[in-house]
């Protein structure tokens, strides 16, 4: 099979991995330099950012996970790339400014250890023989020995182990070859190594960086019955206990018929989008999981974004006077994001703000108008009720707002 056909098979096999971040590292000195904010080089026809050569070393696999396009029982053509091919392909793409670097994943061939050895060989060649100092994201294969796992972070800027499904029950059902324990063990080992290297580099600057862009993971949404509450609690724990940089959510795309899988007409993209919004609220907006979801309402609303829902459920906290509110309060207003909240604080130093001023500061007044006053002036609804506001918001909703560009962008740019 020629190289082009193998690339087609192996990138099609890697495409369900959502991560494409190239941020958080600033390696330089050889061929290539990383940019701390990350760079997107193009966007694919599905609207997902491409910043890395996202590819499998091989799509052959000994496991038979029901949700996976590369499951061993799938009737699909199999291909592989050698470590040399992976290294020179990355290098040639990088020189032409097609990509920021490599995202290397793989099906499991022979054994987890053998797979990791081959992947490590590819990234070692890229770093040492090609003197490549661009970005590398490397998947760690669960079940590989500790020594091999430890080596991954020496070459890669970011490492990740996919958690795949939110609970061990779902794993047992759909991925009988994998256990929650087997996934969490390498994850916590990586977290340990990353934090140890950070500490060491604080005192000895010259000591080698270990996965300087940290660790991420991904889970599949909609293949199993877990609620958004369960998923967000899991993410929250991963951010807090494993110090993960990102949790990616991947709407389940039915790739092979299997009676253990739900029959979906289309991937739950809206739900995935809402999970990303809620995830952003946890990481950048100071929200806790319990504020967004609870046992009575364990699922994110599909019609309204989670911040608007929170505000509608807490109308007694509004309207907020923009000339007096502090940063954390401003962040909780629908239509005000991180950038516009900072602008409000800054502009306030030069004078009092009116409602008309807010638009110039980047506030989305269409949403914010129900929740703010400026100099005591309020332009929202006279008799405020959550339902009345909902009706108004729906009337004003443009079709363009149906899918916000949150998904898979290299930089944290979401404004909620």
């Amino acid at each position, binding site marked *: 099979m020629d190289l082009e056909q193998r690339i087609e098979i192996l990138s099609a096999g890697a495409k*369900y991995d959502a991560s494409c971040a190239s941020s958080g590292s600033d390696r330089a000195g050889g061929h*290539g330099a990383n940019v701390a904010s990350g760079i997107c080089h*193009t966007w694919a026809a599905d609207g997902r950012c491409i910043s890395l050569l996202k*590819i499998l070393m091989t799509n052959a696999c000994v496991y038979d996970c029901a949700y996976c396009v590369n499951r061993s029982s799938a009737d699909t053509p199999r291909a592989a790339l050698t470590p040399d091919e992976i290294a020179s392909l990355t290098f040639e793409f990088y020189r*032409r400014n*097609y990509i920021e670097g490599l995202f290397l994943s793989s099906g499991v061939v022979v054994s987890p250890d053998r797979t990791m050895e081959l992947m490590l060989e590819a990234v070692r060649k890229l770093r040492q023989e090609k003197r490549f100092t661009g970005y590398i994201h490397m998947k760690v294969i669960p079940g590989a020995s500790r020594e091999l796992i430890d080596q991954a972070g020496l070459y890669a800027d970011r490492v990740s182990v996919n958690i795949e499904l939110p609970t061990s029950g779902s794993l047992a059902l759909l991925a009988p070859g994998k256990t929650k324990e087997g996934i969490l063990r390498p994850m916590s080992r990586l977290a340990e190594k990353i934090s140890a290297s950070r500490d060491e580099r604080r005192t000895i600057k010259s000591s080698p960086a270990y996965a300087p862009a940290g660790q991420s993971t991904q889970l599949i949404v909609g293949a199993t019955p877990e609620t958004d509450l369960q998923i967000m609690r899991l993410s929250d724990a991963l951010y807090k206990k494993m110090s993960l940089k990102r949790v990616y959510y991947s709407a389940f795309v039915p790739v092979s018929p299997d009676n253990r899988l739900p029959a979906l007409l289309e991937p739950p993209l809206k739900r995935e989008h809402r999970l990303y919004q809620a995830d952003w609220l946890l990481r950048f907006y100071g929200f806790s999981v319990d504020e967004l979801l609870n046992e009575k309402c364990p699922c994110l609303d599909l019609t309204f974004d989670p911040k608007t829902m929170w505000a509608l459920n807490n109308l007694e906290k509004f309207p907020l006077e923009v000339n007096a509110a502090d940063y954390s309060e401003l962040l909780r207003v629908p239509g005000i994001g991180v950038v516009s909240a900072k602008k409000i604080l800054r502009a306030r*130093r030069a004078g009092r703000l009116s409602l008309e001023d807010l638009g*110039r500061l980047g506030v989305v007044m269409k949403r914010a108008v129900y929740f703010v006053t400026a100099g005591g002036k309020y332009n929202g609804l006279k008799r405020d009720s959550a339902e009345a506001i909902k009706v108004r918001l729906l009337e004003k909703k443009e079709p363009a707002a149906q*899918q916000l*560009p949150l998904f898979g962008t290299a930089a944290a740019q979401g404004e909620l």
Partner: protein
Amino acid sequence: MGAYVYDGSFDGLICAVKAAAGDPAAEITRTSPPQEGLFSRAVEVEASQQESSAFLRQLDSLSDVETPEKMKLCFLWNGPEKESLLLAYARMAFSRGKELNNMLADPVVARVHKAAAAVLREAHRLKGFLRFSELQDRTLYAKMEPDHNVLPLIAGHFKRRMASSDWVIHDTARNLAALYFGGRLRVAELDKTQPPPFSDGEKEAVGLWRAFFNAVAIKERTNPRLQQGFVPLKYRSNMPEFDKD
């Protein structure tokens, strides 16, 4: 009423702003002299690097360092009436002092900050969208037609990224190029000439890239409108993954 004419250079513009700042009815135009009205006089402002940096330092101390930074970015901006906008902005540095750049709700300050942000946004975009082709001597050549004059903002990035290759970035909308050979970077005028022939490996690399680009999209999620929001059509003619066969 005075018309101040400058030569199109950054220093020329700053010197014209300085000259016009005290003249309430002044307007600034670029080289081509304005129509001589009954009461207007055209003043040709000479571009002086020394005078321009001194004025920028003065604006810095009146307000803050953001003022000269924004003015540099606005100079690269390709928007309407940037001369009168910068004149109004500079005058406000005198009248409003330290609070100038906090006045984000003021129409002039908001327009200046927005223009600067638009220039930076396009520079960031092109750091990703620029595509190099390999020539026969292994020099890498990239062509672009940006809205704003972002070449000075991206050249340093590519110097860091491709320090050990020789390369050319050609702004064919402005006949300007960044040339990096043997570790030295310079910016020079360069006409719309056809680049020398591509290397033997170039066609294969493009083919592999296109194969990757097409295969990595998830069919079930196809969303061309979302894609177009991120990669506007105007950039695609220089991106081989969007070439029509």
